[in-house]
């Protein structure tokens, strides 16, 4: 682990909420937190790649939304849904949605590497463009149906873990949703690629010192372009699972995911200046975020105050990270 501070923050938060609320520290709630994190987690994998190269992608949530809507657009909707959609077979709809994500990623990559637009601005534009796609496809309506595979992965249960018997004497289970499995698969694959492949090494080196990577004959533009594409693809998958998870596809439904995903990556200790961090950090960051979001729901405070408190906790986590990093560098 690169940085121990996020782990300590996580443990401290768990201890705090365990004392503050009797309903927080339960197995049931633990899986609850993980379930709530899984869509954000898939986005965060792609974003980790982008941030490791010292770029940023502000379009992740908008792309997720657009791709979620795209897959619904190519699916037969119930009669009461008033969308001029183009129904296709399920697998074609999924492929078209993935191609749309790929196209968005390629446009972003081209804008940044070929034209030279800073990623901050380029992805801001792509955010607006993706939002425009969403708006045009649903026109203010809500879609409810998705290809079967998307519904299964987004809201289906993979298996159930028996946890003994409940009060009524019946066997009790914790259901493990497919989203959790998919998220884990993305995290594991993301980690392996970063740590054990040549491509992963290039990402760290480009993030660590872009000029040096270029003078070592690394194709920096290719690396940066590719992480933008990977990030768009992750967002697209998250978007498809997300609409199934929510049970509806409509505009602006992913708005909170942008800040959540960025916060998860950065709170976990991955440097915004690139080259430091990884999926391990992102997992810790996700858990910190999940524990804060979930824990605040378990304690009795003004729900309007919670928003502010959430912000303050995240700020504190970031401050601790920076200090821990400085301590490590000077020591």
């Amino acid at each position: 682990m690169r940085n121990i501070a996020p782990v300590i923050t996580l443990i401290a938060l768990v201890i705090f909420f365990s004392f503050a609320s009797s309903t927080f520290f339960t197995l049931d709630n633990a899986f609850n937190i993980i379930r709530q994190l899984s869509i954000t987690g898939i986005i965060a994998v792609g974003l980790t790649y982008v941030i490791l190269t010292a770029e940023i992608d502000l379009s992740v949530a908008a792309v997720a939304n657009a791709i979620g809507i795209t897959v619904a657009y190519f699916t037969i909707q119930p009669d009461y849904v008033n969308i001029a959609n183009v129904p296709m077979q399920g697998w074609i709809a999924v492929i078209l949605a993935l191609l749309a994500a790929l196209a968005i990623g390629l446009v972003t990559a081209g804008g940044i590497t070929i034209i030279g637009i800073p990623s901050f601005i380029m992805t801001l534009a792509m955010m607006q463009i993706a939002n425009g796609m969403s708006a045009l496809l649903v026109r203010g309506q809500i879609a409810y149906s998705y290809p079967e595979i998307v519904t299964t992965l987004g809201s289906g249960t993979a298996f159930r873990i028996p946890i003994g018997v409940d009060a009524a004497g019946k066997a009790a289970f914790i259901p493990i949703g497919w989203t959790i499995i998919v998220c884990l698969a993305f995290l594991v694959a993301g980690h392996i690629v970063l740590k054990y492949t040549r491509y992963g090494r290039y990402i760290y080196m480009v993030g660590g010192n872009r000029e040096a990577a270029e003078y070592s004959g690394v194709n920096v533009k290719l690396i940066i372009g590719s992480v933008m594409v990977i990030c768009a693809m992750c967002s697209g998958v998250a978007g498809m699972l997300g609409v199934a998870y929510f049970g509806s596809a409509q505009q602006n439904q992913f708005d909170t995911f942008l800040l959540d995903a960025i916060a998860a990556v950065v709170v976990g200790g991955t440097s915004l200046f690139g080259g430091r961090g990884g999926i391990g950090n992102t997992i810790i960051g996700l858990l910190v975020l999940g524990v804060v979001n979930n824990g605040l729901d378990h304690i009795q405070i003004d729900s309007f105050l919670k928003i502010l408190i959430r912000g303050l906790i995240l700020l504190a986590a970031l401050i601790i990270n920076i200090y821990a990093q400085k301590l490590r560098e000077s020591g």
Partner: protein
Amino acid sequence: MTDEQSGRGGAPPLLELTGVSKSFGGVTALRDVDFTLYPGEIHGLVGENGAGKSTMMKIIAGVHHDFEGVMKIRGVETRLRSARDALASSIGMVHQELSIVPELSVAENVFLGKQPLTTLGIVDWPRMNREAKALIASLGLDIDPAAAMGTLPVGLQQLVELSRVLFSGAQIIILDEPTSALSPPEIRQLFDVLRRLRSEGRSIIFISHFLDDVLAISDRVTVFRNGKKVITDETRKLTKDAVIAHMIGRGSIDMHMGEDAMLAGDDSKPVVLSLENVGDGRTLHDFSIELRAGEITGVYGFMGSGQIELARALFGKLPLRRGSVKLDGKPVRFRSTAGARKAGIAFLPENRQMMLFRTEPVFKNVSIAILDRIHRLLVKPAEEKRITEGHIKDLQIRPPRTEIALGSLSGGNQQKVALAKWLTHLPKVLVLSEPTRGMDVGAKEDVIRIVKSLRDKGVAILVLSAEPETILTLADRVTVMKKGTVARQFSSGKIEKADLLAAA
């Protein structure tokens, strides 16, 4: 001690260090050093890299404050805690890497952070320009204060930075390698300014690797070796050979290394890379050169004569707009550094930091350029380390460890790591920009030996430098570059430093 105090007719010293020692985590960088600076003195400071010059300067400039010993300014014991502190005690430093803002005007650079304001609190431009002009004129220079700093030649940029230090009221001025980027006329101009400052009673500490420059301008010279002061003496009593002998602590080496050379261009060797009338639309124009296998071609020219652009164009970093490039007789065009690398071109930029990863371990620094040859998909750190260990042995990189962060190596060893990147699979063409600049004598000799052995293995090598010694030590043939194009070519016979200087 006594000869120092009598040196300036009994005037009290401006700055006095007694018994100063400084260590970094157990490694002693400076050991029991005494140093005295008198008013109106130019004091040269020489020594190999790592001899302790920079450490002492950083103590004087307030960067290091946890040292042993006593520092007195104007007879008062002082311990400076920051560069700001130093400036308040009228000590200013001009670093080798200038801290200028190229986009801002000359006047803005002079007054950076302290612009004169009108009563309304906005910048008083007429006054700022007027005062900047007066300040610069007091150095005997005529520069338009409204000109953008970036448009000035390096020599003038440096003098503007010097005027900024003077504007802050510095009486003691530390100049770190002030002549390394300057052409001979620019050096003369700098020396005129320094003499003028000396006559005003200011004191200058002049740190440089260029012994000729140090001996030409200093009143006294202090030589450092291995963290200790070896000698302080009046310049008129010293010769270059004597200074070198003090620096390296050996009896004699080839003192005239790099003063002249016998060129050995051999036209029967095959041409590997040829440039014909290339230009980048800005600096380079109508430049032609042929690089032959097993030969070192030197390109000499002052800073700004287009060498940097030439090197970058060869490595695919800068697009060429005119002319043709042929590799092994076939026309090529590199769109990226990755393309150039795959075609067999290797490049070592003049600033080694540009191709090294300070916080990464040595083996990752070495392997980055050859990852696609050792790994198909998964990385194999054990293999990378094995290859790196071979290079560490061959190039005598110290300390001989693959896992330590590159930033903890000395400059010379970092340069060897940078070279090692390209040595696992021999490139067809190796482009070296200032391969020995700022290195101590020992590391320099190592690098020269490595480069020559690569030549003997058949690599076509291009060495670009603004130091005639570097070119004369290495090259088999020489092209002198002037204002982006070929000024003169030498391919055989004896050539002297003066020939290069005359042609550039």
